[in-house]
């Protein structure tokens, strides 16, 4: 079994590398470096309760912008790769009719899930979760629609518009930082007042950005699902 | 005391005349000797004179073209030039010719003047066998040069000069000063190449009348042939004189000259009678073996023994 032997050898070798890490890691007892700074100053700097959100949206906002870009591009790419011939009026997956329970259930659930998603991203700076998680929730609402009604189709035009403009606004908010605050303030959340710590309308632009991200991610994930579901040419 | 240019030319011509006649007579004598050894009666010793006169006077002439024409001129020019560039009689201001214009290197390379012209002339004749003859002659001559060069190098080492006149000068003062005794190995190498240069048996490739009915000389006739025969007469003596100068102490007067050159030339005839003839590839191979080794030994001898 030489074909198995080489993978085995490689995996064992990798094992030794990782073993070295595992045996040398000492558990943390305190925050160090930048994490400590975040913990100490995050709240006062940005006014966000959720430090992860503060980091994701503002401190490392460029990463998040990139992340959104990656998702956007993946969606675009999937659409490009799974593009269909035009004018072919297909009906998606060959369907079994969904059960009545599912139909009714989903009619009930979809608005709730959507609301929940919106709640997650609007409260991103206060509680766990944020744009991505909220977006995923919205996407799962759309997914539920697919399951419930096989003829259900998303409105691509609207989706594209939402996707585009939430993205553009995101960038614009970032650029506003440059315009208002200065050259080093791209994506600075403080172009809006920080507000009262711990309330919805606080933490400057963070809720705004997370809303845009949530919308964008939701529509993108939904489009990806839609594309994956659809028939090929 | 130096001669004026005019008298230098005149004395040179006198020398040439002597050598020419001597050469004709000598070839007659040699042929006679060979014939006697073979048990024949042989030709009269003055036969060569008849031949030349007859050929020069002949009327029926044809020409193949300009190079055919030039061949004998190159050939005879080569012989005469060799004579002119070599001192004939040591110590005589009259017969050292134009040897001051060059040294042994000049003589070595001037040998080719005639050969090349001859080869070209014969080539233009267009006869297939002439080409074969030339290619053989050239091939053999190149290898003959190896041992000759080595011998000359040995001499140059020994006497620290390339000038023929000085080489002869260095051999004066007794028979033991001759290169023959100073460096017998180099002399042997030189003489082996002399055999090749003279193209006598066993190295008589081009001239082999039995094997190839026509070599370059026979393609030429009448005046051309006369010139070629004149050249042969001169060349034999001049070549012998060259070896005499190099290895046998030169000559201080004409008598010594005649005696020495006769015996030097005679060795080739002698060897030719004794040894069988080589094919050309054999002779080429032989020359890069035996004489080469001897020549190398001669150089080593000159470098280390002296």
């Amino acid at each position, binding site marked *: 079994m030489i074909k198995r032997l080489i993978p085995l050898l490689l995996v064992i070798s990798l094992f030794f590398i990782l073993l070295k890490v595992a045996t040398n890691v000492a558990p943390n007892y305190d925050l160090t470096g930048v994490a400590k700074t975040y913990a100490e100053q995050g709240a006062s700097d940005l006014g966000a309760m959720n430090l*992860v959100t503060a980091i994701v949206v503002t401190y490392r906002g460029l990463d998040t912008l990139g992340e959104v870009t990656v998702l956007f591009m993946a969606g675009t790419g999937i659409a490009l790769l799974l593009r269909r011939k035009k004018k072919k009026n297909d009906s998606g997956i060959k369907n079994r009719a969904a059960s009545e329970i599912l139909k009714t259930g989903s009619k009930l659930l979809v608005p709730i899930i959507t609301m929940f998603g919106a709640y997650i991203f609007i409260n991103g700076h206060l509680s*766990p979760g*944020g744009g991505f*998680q909220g977006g*995923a929730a919205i*996407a*799962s609402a759309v997914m539920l629609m697919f399951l419930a009604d096989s003829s259900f189709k998303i409105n691509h035009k609207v989706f594209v518009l939402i996707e585009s403009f939430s993205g553009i606004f995101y960038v614009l908010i970032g650029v506003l930082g440059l315009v208002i605050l200065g050259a080093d303030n791209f994506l600075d959340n403080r172009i809006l007042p920080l507000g009262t710590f711990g309330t919805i309308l606080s933490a400057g632009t963070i809720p705004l950005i997370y809303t845009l991200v949530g919308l964008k991610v939701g529509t993108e994930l939904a489009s990806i*699902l839609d594309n*994956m579901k659809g028939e*090929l040419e | 005391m130096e001669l004026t240019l005019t008298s230098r030319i005149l004395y040179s011509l006198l020398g040439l005349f002597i050598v020419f006649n001597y050469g004709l007579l000598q070839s007659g004598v040699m042929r006679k000797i060979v014939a006697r050894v073979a048990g024949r009666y042989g030709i009269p010793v003055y036969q060569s004179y008849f031949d030349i006169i007859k050929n020069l006077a002949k009327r029926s002439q044809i020409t193949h073209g300009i190079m055919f024409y030039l061949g004998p001129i190159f050939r005879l020019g080569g012989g005469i030039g060799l004579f002119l560039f070599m001192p004939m009689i040591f110590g005589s201001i009259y017969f050292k010719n134009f040897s001051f214009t060059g040294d042994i290197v000049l003589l070595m390379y001037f040998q080719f003047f005639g050969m090349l012209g001859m080869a070209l002339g014969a080539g233009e004749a267009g006869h297939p066998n002439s080409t074969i003859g030339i290619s053989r002659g050239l091939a053999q001559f190149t290898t003959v040069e190896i041992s000759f060069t080595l011998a000359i190098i040995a001499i140059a080492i020994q006497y620290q000069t390339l000038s023929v006149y000085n080489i002869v000068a260095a051999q004066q003062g007794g028979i033991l000063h001759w290169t023959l005794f100073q460096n017998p190995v180099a002399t042997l190498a030189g003489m082996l190449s002399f055999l090749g240069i003279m193209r006598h048996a066993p190295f008589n490739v081009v001239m082999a009348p039995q094997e190839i009915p026509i070599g370059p000389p026979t393609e030429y006739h009448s005046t051309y042939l006369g010139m070629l025969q004149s050249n042969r007469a001169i060349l034999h003596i001049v070549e012998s004189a060259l070896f005499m100068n190099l290895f046998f102490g030169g000559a201080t007067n004409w008598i010594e000259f005649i005696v020495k050159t006769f015996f030097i030339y005679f060795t080739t005839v002698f060897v030719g009678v004794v040894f069988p003839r080589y094919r050309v590839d054999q002779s080429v191979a032989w020359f890069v073996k035996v004489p080469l080794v001897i020549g190398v030994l001669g150089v080593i001898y000159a470098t280390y023994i002296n």
Partner: protein
Amino acid sequence: MELQQGIFILMGLAMIIAAVLAMHVKDLISSIIAVGVVSLFASILYLLMQAPDVAMTEAAIGAGLSTLIFLYALHKTKDVEEEND
């Protein structure tokens, strides 16, 4: 805190088993589900490790969406096959 460690070890073992299953089960659907299970357990671990944001993301995107996409893809590669048979 023996209990906490025990929970972690159990979860870890479960994940490893699910992962091995995912790789060794012949049936692709089971395989995909198994990977989904790995993700799900991971999200629980995140929660236990005081990382609720990550836990939510992993549950929604890693376990949920990703599994669905895999299933769709699997469906698609079977689907075409059937059509052509």
